[in-house]
């Protein structure tokens, strides 16, 4: 899975590291007897942008948490650069970052301290170097003015951008995004898409993106997987998806609003007089 010529370049120091891939093999997950992931198998190649799409509740975020090592599968295996992501030793060797859907910023810390926590704890440079790194990340996301604010003072979109900046500070080899463009305006959504693409093109960072954003999925991804009811129903390039004749895929990618749908008629008849 490792490509010998594929190297990630640290966006702050220029140092190179091996790009990492992800292998998901026959993963199943059940909660209290309810199967939420059913025999999922796919690979993400080093330096690839892989997008996971699917209706709400289809298991995308759960799968992402498994790849991040936050949860263990009921059966099957997940490997990041050949290693089990749930182990502390793996996170020592592979720099992995996750952009949470709600940001998951530390509410008791300022934006600056949120970003500086990782380099401080891992002793990556003196305070001056850390400050430069933090400010650089904030500037990339255009949130440098919020450096002294606390998360409670930020809007949803700002929190998301700070969360992405915090992920960048960790100089990730593998970057996982959970709905990175939700709650963002179209311009900022486009900026986030550009950042994901830039991290791949300039720094060869492997990205796995869970999103509902069709534009993001079809413009910047190398491959897209669609998850429905816990099953990976299709996997291919954006072109393959656009050409797909599978009605589930067509309906999902091109939803039609039908106010004469039988469901609405049923609701009308049930409405109280």
């Amino acid at each position, binding site marked *: 899975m490792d490509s010998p010529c594929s190297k990630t370049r640290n966006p702050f120091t220029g140092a190179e590291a091996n790009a990492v891939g992800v292998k998901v093999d026959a993963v199943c997950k059940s909660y209290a007897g309810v199967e939420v992931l059913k025999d999922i198998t796919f690979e993400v190649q080093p330096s690839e942008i892989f997008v996971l799409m699917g209706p709400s509740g289809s298991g995308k975020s759960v799968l992402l948490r498994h790849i991040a*090592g936050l949860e263990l599968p009921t059966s099957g295996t997940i490997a990041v650069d050949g290693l089990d992501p749930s182990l*502390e030793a793996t996170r020592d060797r592979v720099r992995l970052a*996750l952009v949470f859907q709600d940001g998951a*910023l530390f509410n008791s810390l300022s934006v600056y301290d949120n970003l500086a*926590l990782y380099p401080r*704890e891992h002793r990556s440079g003196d305070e001056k170097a850390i400050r430069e790194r933090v400010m650089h990340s904030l500037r990339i996301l255009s949130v440098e003015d919020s450096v002294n604010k606390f998360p409670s003072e930020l809007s949803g979109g700002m929190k998301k951008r700070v969360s992405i900046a915090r992920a960048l500070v960790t100089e990730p080899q593998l970057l996982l995004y959970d709905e990175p463009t939700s709650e963002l305006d179209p311009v900022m959504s486009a900026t986030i898409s550009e950042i994901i693409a830039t991290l791949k093109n300039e720094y060869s960072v492997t990205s796995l993106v869970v999103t509902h954003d069709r534009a993001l999925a079809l413009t910047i991804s190398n491959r897209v997987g669609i998850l429905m009811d816990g099953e990976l129903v299709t996997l291919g390039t954006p072109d393959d998806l656009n050409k797909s004749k599978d009605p589930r895929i067509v309906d999902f990618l091109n939803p039609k609003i039908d106010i004469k749908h039988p469901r609405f008629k049923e609701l009308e008849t049930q409405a109280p007089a």
Partner: protein
Amino acid sequence: MKQLNIVLQGVGSTVQLLFRSLSYAGTLPRQWPRFIEQCYMIGYTTLPIVAILSFFIGTVLALEAGYSMSDFGAKEYIGSLVGLSMARELGPMMTAVLLAGRVGSAITAELASMKVYQEIDALTIMNIPAAKILVLPRLAAVLVMMPVLTVISNIVGWFGGSVVARYVSSLGISPEAYFAALRHFTKFKDVMNGVEKAEVFGFVVVLVCCNIGLNTKGGPREIGAAVTRAVVTSLILILVLDYFVTKVLV
């Protein structure tokens, strides 16, 4: 059977958290600001309520002791009773109870909230163990602050007793006589026994409250449930441990 399983799981995860936290003990000098912050939270913010409560415990002890001991013509010994009771039992226990209610609940609420809102997951991803930066400084801080709080509780309680002994007309014992009796019967060893008890109580309360907070699952509603569970568990453990620690120390 299910309840027993839950209790055993709780014990197991608490012990595991203890060892994981202690394994990062070497990082404590680098966590100086966090340690100081926790000392402030545990010590300084708890001090006023400890002082108020201890004062009135001292007064009630003196009043009750005076009432009973007057019958035997032994009211001059009120100081000895208040001194020993505060030093060996009530000082450490009431300080621990207040710690559970005031600090333990706040710790659980903070960590449970961090868990529910995925901040703990974010730390895990960053390879920054919660046991290292959230638990260890609190455990170190409670070990430093509990003796201080307990000794202050004792002194304030003794003073409360002396006020009652002097100003309640049926007693009318001078502070000199009160403190002479107190000094005669309350040895340094008694105070140290109380401090040792307080150390055990404080350490267990903080550890249990951290563990319950970090293992909270579900939504915001669970935060409240976790706080209740942490305080109730702490209070039960304080009383149970009180018996065993006293048995060892006597």
